[in-house]
């Protein structure tokens, strides 16, 4: 039997690319990413350009996805809305992941009362229905992009924290840690340079799926009016005006939601694919 000489990372990527679902997810993610980055170049109109003469036109030659209730081009608004969604998704997940890593690492490494304390905090946060907490906090801080990012980040750190804590608990008694301590490495160094790089793989899955989840939360908030404020376009607020005009403008209700679906689907497929690729039991 041939010895597999590929590195762990190379093996994982190889497994990932063979998975058809994950590949589809990856393509979707890439597609949305590219469209969002190049939105200023690709969008045919200025997303805030109001055109009263052309209110609520259906998909047509001049406006491929129609116009909204103020005559703004839906295609352009959707492209720019994608930027907002991705921004919020990435930053919120970034905050949640960093916070989760810090707390999880401390809890897992030091154990004892510190661990108990942090896990109690996790329990407290998990006890309050997320929507309620997010609503309450958004009501206090005025709705704005930054606040949404912070709120979603502050309510999503629990899962990464648990994952990292589990990794740390299983890794902290390994020989390489004992060896590092024996040659005089301090706690901080051990955590950052030795344990953490080995324990990051489940975080990759959590972060990818988390981006999808953050996009869903942001669009829900915008739909309720507590998210991104007009005139900044957001898929959620597009859907909200779609609701108000549902009898005469089906495209406002259908298309932005489809965009959300495709984007989140991409991240979920990719995340699940990464999870399967990292699963040691599924390797050939």
């Amino acid at each position, binding site marked *: 039997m041939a010895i597999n000489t590929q590195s762990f990372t190379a093996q994982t990527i190889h497994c990932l690319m063979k998975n058809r*679902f994950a590949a589809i997810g990856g393509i979707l993610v890439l597609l949305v990413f590219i469209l969002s980055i190049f939105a200023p170049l690709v969008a045919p109109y200025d997303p805030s350009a109001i055109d009263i003469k052309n209110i609520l036109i259906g998909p047509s030659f001049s406006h491929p996805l129609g116009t909204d209730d103020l005559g703004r081009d839906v295609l352009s608004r959707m492209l720019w809305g994608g930027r907002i969604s991705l921004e919020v998704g990435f930053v919120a997940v970034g905050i949640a992941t960093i916070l989760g890593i810090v707390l999880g690492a401390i809890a897992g490494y030091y154990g004892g009362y510190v661990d108990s304390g942090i896990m*109690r*905090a996790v*329990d*407290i946060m*998990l*006890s*309050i*229905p*997320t*929507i*309620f*907490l997010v*609503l*309450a*906090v*958004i*009501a*206090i801080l005025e709705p704005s992009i930054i606040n949404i990012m912070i709120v979603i980040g502050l309510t999503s750190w629990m899962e990464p924290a648990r994952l990292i804590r589990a990794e740390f608990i299983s890794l902290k008694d390994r020989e390489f840690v004992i060896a590092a301590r024996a040659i005089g490495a301090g706690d901080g160094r051990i955590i950052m340079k030795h344990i953490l790089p080995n324990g990051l793989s489940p975080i990759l899955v959590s972060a990818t799926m988390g981006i*999808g989840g953050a996009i*869903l939360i942001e*669009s*829900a908030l915008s*739909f*309720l009016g507590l998210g991104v404020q007009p005139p900044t376009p957001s898929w*959620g607020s597009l*859907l909200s005006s*779609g*609701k108000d005009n*549902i*009898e005469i403008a*089906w495209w406002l*209700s*259908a298309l*932005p*939601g*489809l965009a*959300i*679906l495709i984007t*989140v*689907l991409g991240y*979920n*497929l990719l995340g*699940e694919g990464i999870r399967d690729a990292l699963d040691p039991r599924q390797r050939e």
Partner: protein
Amino acid sequence: MLFYFIKRALLMVPILLGITVLSFGVMRLAPGGPAEAQMEFSARASAEARERLRKLYGADQPFYKQYATWLTKFVTLDFGEAFADGRKVKDKILERLPITLTINLLSLGLVLLIAIPIGIMSATRQYSLLDRSTTIFVFIGFSTPSFWLALLLIYLFGVQWGALPISGIQALDVTGLSGWDRLMDRARHLILPVFVLSFGGLAGFSRYIRNNMLEVMRQDYIRTARAKGLSEKTVIYKHALRNALMPVITILGLALPGIIGGSVIIEQVFGIPGMGQLMFQSVMSRDYNLVMGILAPAAFLTLLGNFLADIGYAFTDPRVRLS
């Protein structure tokens, strides 16, 4: 085993206190208290009047005193009055709770009823057409924004086909109808909301059951059962299923907060006068008594749900009791 439960119950207390402090702190941090909210439209209110109002609401007391007062009233289920209309918070919650509970419990029941069989079938026929198509359905279900699905269904069923009502929970002229008709009318109003609520749960839950079953069926004891000559049906339904269902109890416990709070968006979209809508309105109008009155009991119920899930788990899995 009793010791285990007592320990768990005692652990709940600091968590509960933590929740109340957190909620209370979050609310009090908010700019503008009750006095300011009432004074907003009356620019001529003198500083003295403002001060009197603040004293009335106890807003001039230090934080811990306010918290203590609030906590003592809280334990006796006196949540104070809502700022908006002065009615007792408890009454407002109680009048909205049944509707929310109805929708959420119906949806939970639907999910369990459909997801478990689908999950089992997907696991036993892995990689079949059924399995693959449900996998696709599951991923789409995960990724669909619920309010979008609601809008689509409203459009199809309400606007295009006019088959189902799209808002509220009963028709406008409900007084003239008989009891049975009223029930049917209520049911027709609830079909869409319950379906949309169940959609995501169906996807996630059937996937969970499927993965659990696959996990269980790889175990040695299943192989033993088959080697013993038991029929496939017995193997699956008597041995595999029982083990796969154990985490379901945990899931049910974790679903408890969802039963109160999970329908906020749906209630907004369909105009259903439930707890979710109440929470949303109270947050928008900065009605702190109301917000706290909903938040804290909701958190408490969640803890209770987790605790019950733990008990259930200990009953079904003997290994837990011994650890």
